[in-house]
């Protein structure tokens, strides 16, 4: 178990390092001149100034020296300063992280719980009306691009309801959880649904398929013949075994979740990490982009290690070695 964890952590570190190199390389071969960009109209008048700024930012040194500096600062928790707002990248991230975390975690809970529940309902009554309804939902959910769904939700639940005098759903923005939990949830409910629906559809189908398979196994028949309550058989005997591939899928979906968060934040004007990175791309604010991409990579790697550990908890047959 410990050995497995250590090996898993080591490969994780390797992947993150690889990504840091790739990201750094991408931005080093960038054809634009950062100093020129920063100075704007001053650059044309004063070539001297461009060179000073280049020097100040350390952009005149060889690539590997820059990378070494970058790594060194990284280990000291210093991600540099935004080229654009001149604020430390760490404080920018600190401000944006709670928003993205609230959005992503909330949406993930909704999609997993709702997706699995609908899938189980579907599987226990195959070809029933509920099953068909769930299938229809999955079909529509899968084909709805996130941003189209978000804008449609805004149109109906924010704009049309406001016209009708119902002002429950705000049109965007964010209220910190610590400030007012009620308003926090109220502001996030539409973004949560937007981000959750497409993935939920996948989980409905996956759970249904898995459950149908598991419920046909011998030990489930044994459990039923012992006279256990049907609910207990479905959830304790059936769902637990069916959860393993669902957990695998979740590991894969973490990267998708982050991508969806970028789009959702853009639709609802949430100033989280996703929106921050899109703005950083527009402003060619490289320290911010590099930091967000690295953070995302670390997050994906950690999430996948957690998923691997969950296997052992869920399925006693899995031995971690």
């Amino acid at each position, binding site marked *: 178990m410990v050995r497995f964890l250590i090996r898993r952590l080591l490969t994780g570190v390797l992947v993150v390092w690889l990504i840091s190199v790739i990201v750094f390389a991408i931005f080093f071969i960038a054809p634009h001149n950062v100093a020129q960009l920063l100075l704007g109209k001053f650059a044309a008048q004063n070539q001297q100034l461009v060179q000073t700024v280049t020097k100040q930012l350390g952009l005149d040194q060889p690539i590997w020296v820059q990378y070494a500096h970058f790594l060194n600062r990284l280990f000291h928790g210093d991600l540099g300063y935004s080229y654009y707002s001149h604020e430390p990248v760490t404080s920018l991230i600190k401000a944006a992280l709670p928003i993205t975390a609230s959005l992503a975690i909330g949406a993930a809970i909704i999609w997993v719980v709702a997706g699995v529940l609908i899938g189980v309902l579907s599987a226990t009554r195959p070809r029933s009306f509920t099953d068909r309804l769930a*299938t229809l939902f999955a079909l*529509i959910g899968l084909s709805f691009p996130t941003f189209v769904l978000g804008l449609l939700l805004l149109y109906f639940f924010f*704009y049309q309801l406001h016209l009708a005098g119902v002002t429950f759903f705000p049109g965007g923005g964010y209220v910190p959880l610590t400030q007012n939990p009620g308003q926090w949830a109220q502001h996030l409910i539409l973004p949560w649904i937007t981000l959750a629906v497409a993935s939920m559809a996948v989980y409905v189908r996956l759970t249904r398929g898995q459950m149908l398979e598991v419920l046909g196994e011998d030990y489930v028949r044994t459990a039923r013949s012992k006279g256990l309550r049907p609910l207990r058989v479905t959830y304790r005997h059936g769902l637990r075994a069916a959860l393993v591939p669902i957990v695998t899928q979740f590991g894969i979906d973490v990267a998708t979740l982050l991508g969806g968060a970028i789009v959702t934040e853009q639709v609802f004007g949430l100033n989280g990490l996703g929106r921050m*990175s899109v703005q950083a*791309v527009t402003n060619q604010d490289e320290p911010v*982009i590099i930091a967000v991409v690295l953070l995302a990579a670390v997050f994906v790697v950690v999430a996948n290690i957690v998923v691997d550990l969950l296997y052992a908890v869920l399925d006693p047959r899995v031995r971690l070695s």
Partner: protein
Amino acid sequence: MSTTELFESAEVPTIDTSGTLGRSPWQLAWARLRRDRVALVCGAFIVLLGLVAAFAGPLSKLIGWSPTQQDRINGLTPDGLPAPPSVHHLLGTDNLGRDVLVRVIYGTRVSLAVGVAAAVAAVLIGVIVGLIAGYFGPAVDAIVSRLMDVVLSFPFLLFAIALVSVVGPSELVEIGVIAFFSWAAVGRIVRGQTLSIREKEYIEAARSLGASDRRIMFVDVLPNLVAPVLVYTTLLIPVSIVFEATLSYLGVGIIPPTPSWGNMISDAQDVYQQAWWFLLFPGIALIATTLAFNLLGDSVRDALDPRTERLFAK
């Protein structure tokens, strides 16, 4: 009586085969697909989309507006807002007074071209890399598989926008970016299949006859992978189309004024409260297209391998 004698004396039953035709698995699959009403409707819709994309020029001439032409008379309301659907503009106008119908038609071209090209490119890379990983033994497999794991666990949208920001957006870059983040999933499937096929006797036979590695990979192994690859390609196209629209929506895909469904929806975001048509029509085009490809892919899978459970049971 010995076994041999038994066989020799046994009467061979003659079957009248004149009435039945031998059909290859492909013919069977095609027959199944043709009986599938959902597949027919979706296939027809996709063909129609292709025609619309191919004849976007003549169609826009027929309608009377070019995709970038601003109508200075009826294009905007007196308040400067998009004009609602009318006789001048059947689906209304956008924020700059351009015809939404013509722009949606031209958007079809971008979506199909980028979506199909990216999916095909991803499949080509995925097949080759997957074959190499599956065929050349554990050492190569370990390296290539790890590489595929890394690509699969990339927060791809974030990487895509970062990459585009550096290289600069264009149609070709977009195709490359989408293909780059999609090939690994194909590679994984091909690798898995290749691993089992390469242990088959006929591969050993080919090798003992002196066939080269390349010949075995492409002539003996690859034809067995056509069915799963075909299914995956059909399902990858809608994913690529949504990917394209998302990049354009975020402003790192197709550069305005060239219309794409994604950048239209992005423009519509600021005025959707006053101009629902501007958001709705490109949105419907996008959803209908992905839906059609998803359903068709599901039918193709069903036709090629009836044992698999359908994604959308009827």
